[in-house]
């Protein structure tokens, strides 16, 4: 990993104005990311992951501190930091091809000929296996396909930094695994820096060089950074048995659920206990139902009488 400073987040804090005064969502977030690095951000819902990403994208302006990309301060959005939004954000009146075309035209105008652009758009759509449905509009394709077009759009911009906000959140396990593999491949080939938000511990461990774990809000910040020392290319099945994988997975889980647990008690390690509680809950429910029935019967009787 190169030690050259590529993307630096320094003391980034943000206050959102609310009716009850400013709400400090992020407090002094510090992070240095090297060129070509794959970093995942993980944390509980509402802690401020999207906010960090939006600051890097330039869509939000940090109240204090800031972002430096290759020695230049970031204070507005730009195509060199492409974003794959949490909800795909395709333009509904354009076909998949046209959605990618809009981005390609913006970035490569004057650099690529018309034919080259067409080829480039088709190439990127085929990277995410969407070449067969290029001419379909977003309302004619499935959620997973939309997300893939969103990824193709971002990739086609050849960004220095690729920002992914829960890109596979709404997908089924199969599509998700497939897209994770393609993302790893693409990143290996293009070597761009990736920041990805995820809720999925396995996904984070599988894809990342480092996992950034965030504390809970308000005033959320970077709690811990975990290095993943797994060799690439990574194979999800073979890897899942290795001690390093298990160590990383455990480290993230213990951060999320033991040290920064949100009152939701969910200990994945103690499987038996959860099964027991589930059984208990089930019996309780059945009992409640039974007493309900008795009540209803009584009611019917009294009414009949």
């Amino acid at each position, binding site marked *: 990993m190169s030690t050259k400073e590529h993307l630096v987040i320094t003391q980034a804090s943000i206050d959102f104005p609310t009716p009850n005064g400013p709400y400090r969502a992020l407090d002094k977030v510090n992070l240095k990311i090297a060129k070509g690095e794959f970093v995942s951000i993980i944390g509980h819902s509402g802690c401020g992951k999207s906010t960090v990403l939006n600051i890097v994208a330039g869509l939000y302006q940090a109240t204090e501190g800031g972002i430096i990309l290759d020695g230049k301060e970031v204070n507005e959005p730009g195509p060199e930091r*492409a974003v794959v939004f949490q909800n795909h954000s395709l333009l509904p009146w*354009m076909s998949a091809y046209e959605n990618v075309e809009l981005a390609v035209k913006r970035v490569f105008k004057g650099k690529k000929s018309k034919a080259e652009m067409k080829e480039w758009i088709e190439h990127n759509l085929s990277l995410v296996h969407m070449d067969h449905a290029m001419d379909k509009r977003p309302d004619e394709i499935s959620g997973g396909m939309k997300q893939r077009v969103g990824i193709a759009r971002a990739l086609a911009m050849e960004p220095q930094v690729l920002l992914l906000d829960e890109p596979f959140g709404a997908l089924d396990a199969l599509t998700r695994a497939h897209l994770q593999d393609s993302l790893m491949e693409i990143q290996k080939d293009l070597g761009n820096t990736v920041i990805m938000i995820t809720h999925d511990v396995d996904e984070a461990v599988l894809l990342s060089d480092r996992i950034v774990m965030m504390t809970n809000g308000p005033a959320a910040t970077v709690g811990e950074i975990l290095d993943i020392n797994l060799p690439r290319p990574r194979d999800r099945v073979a890897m899942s048995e290795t001690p390093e994988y298990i160590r990383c997975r455990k480290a993230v889980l213990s951060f999320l659920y033991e040290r920064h647990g949100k009152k939701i008690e969910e200990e994945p390690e103690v499987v038996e206990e959860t099964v027991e509680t589930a059984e208990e809950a089930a019996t309780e429910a059945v009992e409640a139902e039974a007493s309900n029935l008795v009540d209803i019967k009584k009611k019917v009787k009294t009414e009949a009488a």
Partner: protein
Amino acid sequence: MSERIDSASTTGMDWLLPKIKTMTVPLIGILIFLGIWQMGAPKIVTSLGAVPGPTQVFQQFVGLVDEHKEAREKEAAFIKRQEVRNAKKLEKDPNAVVKIRAYTGKATFFDQIWTSLLTVSAGFLIASLIAIPIGIIAGLSQTVYTAINPLIQVFKPVSPLAWLPIITMIVSAVYVSDSPMFEKSFVTSALTVMLCCLWPTMINTAVGVANISQDLQNVSKVLRLSWWTHVVKIVLPSAVPMIFTGLRLSFGIAWMVLIAAEMLAQNPGLGKFVWDEFQNGSSNSLGRIMVAVIVIGVLGYLLDRGMLTLQKYVSWDKSQALR
């Protein structure tokens, strides 16, 4: 073989049945209305005779069509006579100055319809060309919106008929030319229509533009689209439904206002036709006015349908239910 024919005819019926159903119900409604009208009308007697029922009104309509044909024939005859006269003159003396006069017969009912349609389209088009760009700019910029909102709010509730005298005066003062392309009365009516079309289109466009989803705006920001591309590729398509809501509202109001303006200003058009008939006070007048009322209604309906078809054609969301 017979079975095949059978099945074909049933599928034919399957396709036809819902259509018949959607046709019959409104038809029954219309028939009941006509029945009540036919029975009720003769009971009301005015100074111009009894109120005409549907049959009399239809007769008046036929009469108006005949009148129109007659007028056209007269016009053709007039032009022919003039040509013959001029040709004779030129034969006698090749250097003679021949005068070609336009036919100046009374405008028929159908001429008036045409004038009204032309006027409303002109006013509506000019208003749309002004209101949509302003609406887009106001929707994009909060500052512009805040600046023009009070003006819109004040002018919107003013009946354009209140503007009519002012417009008439201004037009006759400003619009002076020896060979005017349009008649003054046409300009006055069109401007009055324009004034009432501006506001609904402007407001709805601004609201449509201001409510573009934040996600799409973010896409535009990340791509750093130019202002023009942003407007054409993102703003306009998302605002199209609201723009059309505004346009259709405007058009509906415009049609109503135009008729009133024509009546008030004695400008050519359907409104003038109604007013003239009212002033004539012949036994045919009530029937003819009713023909005009029905024609005004039907045209208003057809114009709105036309806008709807245009909206369906322009709108990207074909699955959207438009009515």
